[in-house]
């Protein structure tokens, strides 16, 4: 019981720190650095290594905090993160056959695209369809490119650290005993 409460508190603290970093620090960084999407990175990481339930819990914690801090309409970050999680989950369950670095990259790229598409479509709804939808602008695709690049780097880092720490993701080889 205490262990579970402790885990939930640690998880909530990680979400609080991550959301504050995303909201205040990363947003003020120059150039392509402000396109780092910490929430999305953590979401895919959690989905890949800990499963859908943990990812759902993360969406609620991180999404609630971001929706509280931000001036987007309430539910904006919930929906964007959920859309990215659903897309990643479907790809992970139906298309990917193993948990390799390449699978991890595919998930990150899909999540980045879906998250950003959801964000601009929701924003387009929120302004009563005024102007152009964001995905028709050059800046949208530039931002998706930067985010994908950061996410690919982060995926390589997360994956290698996880493999080094956890045995179940280490590669293994079947060897024939007593043979040639």
């Amino acid at each position, binding site marked *: 019981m205490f262990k579970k409460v402790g885990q939930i508190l640690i998880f909530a603290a990680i979400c*609080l720190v991550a959301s*504050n*970093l995303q*909201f*205040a*620090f*990363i*947003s*003020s*960084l*120059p*150039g392509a*650095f*402000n396109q780092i999407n910490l929430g999305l990175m953590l979401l895919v990481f959690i989905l890949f290594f800990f499963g*859908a*339930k943990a990812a*759902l819990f993360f*969406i*609620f914690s991180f999404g*609630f*905090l971001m*929706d*509280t*801090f*931000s*001036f*987007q309409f*309430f*539910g904006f970050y*919930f*929906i964007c993160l*959920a859309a990215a999680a*659903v897309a990643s989950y479907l790809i992970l369950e139906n298309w990917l056959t193993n948990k390799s670095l390449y699978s991890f990259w595919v998930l990150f790229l899909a999540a980045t695209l879906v998250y950003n598409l959801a*964000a*601009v479509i*929701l*924003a*387009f709804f*929120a*302004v009563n369809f*005024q*102007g*152009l939808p*964001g995905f028709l*602008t050059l*800046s949208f695709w*530039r*931002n998706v490119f930067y985010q994908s690049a950061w996410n690919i780097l982060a995926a390589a880092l997360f994956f290698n650290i996880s493999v080094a720490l956890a045995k179940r993701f280490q590669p293994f080889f079947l060897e024939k005993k007593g043979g040639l």
Partner: protein
Amino acid sequence: MIRIKKNNPLLIFTVVLGLLVFLHGLGIIRPLENALLFLVKPVSSKLYVWGAGISSSYSENREKTDLLSEINRLQQSVSVLTIQDSHWREVEGENEKLRSQLNFVAANKFQVVLANIIAKEEVFSATEDSRDLVIDRGQKDGLRLDYGVLSPDGAIIGKIVEVSDSSSRICLVTSPGCQLAASLQNEDKTKGITDGNLGLTINMNYIPQLEKIALGDMVITSGLGGNIPRGLVIGKVSEVKSESNEVWQAAIIEPLVNLNDLTVVSVVIP
């Protein structure tokens, strides 16, 4: 027939999201939201200052450092002097008018509220890249929609476009869609509306062809139609777009302060 599993994550998500949006709409979870904001605001402010510091040093390192710092120093003093000059010119003009009417009314008497910038927020709906600022003051501190926001030098950098209990969102004068009623400090005292351009400069459109605009003319707020007082410096004219066969001409205005380096601002309460 579609069977819904009891522990379907999508179902759980929809129910919890619906409940949270409902509770948020009713304001039941507002105390929790305010408490969270109160808790993180000091940390956010520090994090933002660090990020802005990195941003500032990053942009400086891209050029030759010594030369750039010298230019920056000179630019800062020029901007301070230009703002002062514009202020005095405005005061002089007003003074003359007032003297001529023998009606002495003290002008530019307004209160300001100091605020820390705690974040930059992406505007997903803008047609081009733009980011708004979030400050740590809100309705509780007396801020309202459309109040003007000043840099420490006294130039107007934007206006409030959204207010919550304890924070506000500011659009920058260079952001598309951020409009201010403005006036040129030229012979004709040309009036118009400024609008941000690509997050870099400011446009002033629909100026009649007969109005004379010169490069370097100062642009100030006109005080028309809103909560922003007259005489706050917006920038100076850096380019005039005028075609003889057009009805209107346009001016491109450069802001006098670097909008990326700001960490503290003041909100004008009229």
